């Protein structure tokens, strides 16, 4: 089977590979142009300001970082929990995890006010800062998942894949806990300051990561004219449904808890009802496109036999995930800080007013740069090494997935 499904040099067409490379390269060039333009002129050419300090680049970057840890789950289910179907997909899962994390971190770094001081971030650590802890987790993630990939793909080291896979699984749980805590630890802002952010980001990562995996796998299968087996599709889509459902549950708990607290009413009214773009993205993007619609598609009759439907459902989860990040990151900043509860407040520094945010072309280019980095790494990796899943169908229980 391997001979038929590989995309690497021995069987894939070179022109198509180079086309993909050029496509990704052009986007990345645009990103680099934007980076140098912002570096030269300052962030004044972006839509970010002293009110909305994190913008579109962070939406894309944090999405990629969260999804990166989630996409590793496919490998973890294989190595840690011994599921053979997932084990066949572990190398692709690990590679995507590295590619997406590299893309996400690239996005964050390119948006720094002083990106030339990246070495400072690597040599000066304030260990009380969850941001600094994240830097360690990200670097460790590269090392551990890299090692994990070696054990998975090397003939002589396969016996180590389980313990290293377990370490990678625990590490990724810690990493996403720390990523969610970036928001959870912001004590003063109405939109954050909740321990729920850590587990909620883990659940989101499960959903976004698996959705990204399904999308990439679908494209790889299509590229090679291979039909995905319906038993595999059925399992993947049902697992995605569980993660999407759990994500909706955590979202509901966060907002219902807030609605219970009188001090949070204004914020919830803003985010869920009156905040313009934010309620639209929350209900239309995060909940409907990224939650309800994928669930309906996944459980619609015949979905297990319809790869395009599952592909589309996964794509919607990714779109909904970006909407969620926009609502979380930008919406949380757009709502003004309340310095004096019970008082109407105004000042020359935009106290008491909802902060506007209109991203400029430059930060849009920065934002998509992370995706371009992940895309390019994936295309090159798939080209040079064998990441195409190779299933041994005798190991898969035929009756395990019926819906």
């Amino acid at each position: 089977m391997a001979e038929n499904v590989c995309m690497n040099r021995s069987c894939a067409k070179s022109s198509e590979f180079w086309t993909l490379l050029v496509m990704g390269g052009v986007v990345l060039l645009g990103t680099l142009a934007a980076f140098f333009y912002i570096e030269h002129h300052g962030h004044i050419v972006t839509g970010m300001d002293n009110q909305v300090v994190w913008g579109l680049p962070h939406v894309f970057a944090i999405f990629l970082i969260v999804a990166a840890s989630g996409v590793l789950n496919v490998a973890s289910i294989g190595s840690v929990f011994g599921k053979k179907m997932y084990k066949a997909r572990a190398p692709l899962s690990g590679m995507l995890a590295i590619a997406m994390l590299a893309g996400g971190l690239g996005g964050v770094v390119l948006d720094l006010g002083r990106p030339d001081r990246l070495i400072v971030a690597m040599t000066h650590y304030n260990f009380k800062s969850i941001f600094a802890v994240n830097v360690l987790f990200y670097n460790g993630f590269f090392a551990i998942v890299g090692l994990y990939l070696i054990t998975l793909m090397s003939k002589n080291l396969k016996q180590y894949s389980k313990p290293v896979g377990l370490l990678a699984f625990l590490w990724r749980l810690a990493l996403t806990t720390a990523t969610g805590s970036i928001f959870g630890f912001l004590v003063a802002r109405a939109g954050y300051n909740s321990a729920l952010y850590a587990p909620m980001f883990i659940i989101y990562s499960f959903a976004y990561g698996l959705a990204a995996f399904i999308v990439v796998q679908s494209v790889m299968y299509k590229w090679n004219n291979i039909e995905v087996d319906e038993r595999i599709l059925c399992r993947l889509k049902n697992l995605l449904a569980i993660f999407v459902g759990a994500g909706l549950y955590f979202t509901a708990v966060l907002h219902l808890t807030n609605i219970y607290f009188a001090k949070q009413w204004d914020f919830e009214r803003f985010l869920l009802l009156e905040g313009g773009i934010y309620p639209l993205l929350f209900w239309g993007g995060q909940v409907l496109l990224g939650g309800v619609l994928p669930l309906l598609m996944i459980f619609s009759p015949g979905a297990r036999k319809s790869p395009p439907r599952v592909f589309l459902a996964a794509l919607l989860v990714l779109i909904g995930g970006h909407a969620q990040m926009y609502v979380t990151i930008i919406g949380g900043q757009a709502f003004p800080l309340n310095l004096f509860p019970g008082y109407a407040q105004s000042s020359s520094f935009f106290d008491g007013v909802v902060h506007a945010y209109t991203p400029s072309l430059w930060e849009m280019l920065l934002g998509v740069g992370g995706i371009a980095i992940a895309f390019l790494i994936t295309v090159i990796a798939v080209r040079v090494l064998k990441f195409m899943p190779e299933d041994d169908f005798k190991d898969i229980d035929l009756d395990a997935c019926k819906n």
Partner: protein
Amino acid sequence: MSEQNKQVHEAADGDRRDFLKVGVGLAGVALAPGVLFYGISAHGKAPDAPASTAVRWGMLIDTGKCADGCNSCTTACATENGLSGQTGPQDSQWIRKMHIKNLQTGAEHNLPMLCQHCENPPCVDVCPTGASMKRADGIVLVDRHICIGCRYCMMACPYKARSFVHEPLTDQNPEVPRGQGCVESCTFCVQRVDRDETPACVEACSKDGHMAMMFGDLKDPNSDIARAMQSYATTEVRADLGLNTGVRYQGI
């Protein structure tokens, strides 16, 4: 030794003693002001000495004396620290005048809002590189050399007291270095405080006769600010966060 010689020696010893007495006296007179100055400079701190935990700088703002429409403090801050004084969404404002109105009673107040120089500053906690830091004397600063411009401190500050430098800078005050791509905020005019002067905003407020801002050492029980805080009820903004701010308000 003959009696005569002995008398001569005694006379010479007496002269030497007198000379030493006069010399030490003169030296004392010459050095005393310096020693005294050294002793009291900057409330116990020599100009080159490191900040001391024996001092905690703080500010008390009497909102009852803060005049509506007066911007002396913000103007003085901009002049002292080389800020543009512009108030666009991407301009730096280290201190701003706030107008607040109680939604129940309709009571209105004016007050300056600035970095509150917390004892437990969230900006310092979240800074990944340690660029956000608190001096021993309680002044919260940004080390411009290791700030990477991630803006996490701006997300964390409950008082919206920090600004990001969005564009290239020109005509900087050499005493107050700033940097494009770095975060900055009120320093309590640390360059003035270390010269035993008060922050520019406090000086301007006093000069205009409002006397709404008082600056001093919170740890010195005899300082004006400590006495005032012992006498009047003062408020910590967002006291619920437990940050123990160095800036306190009176009248709200």
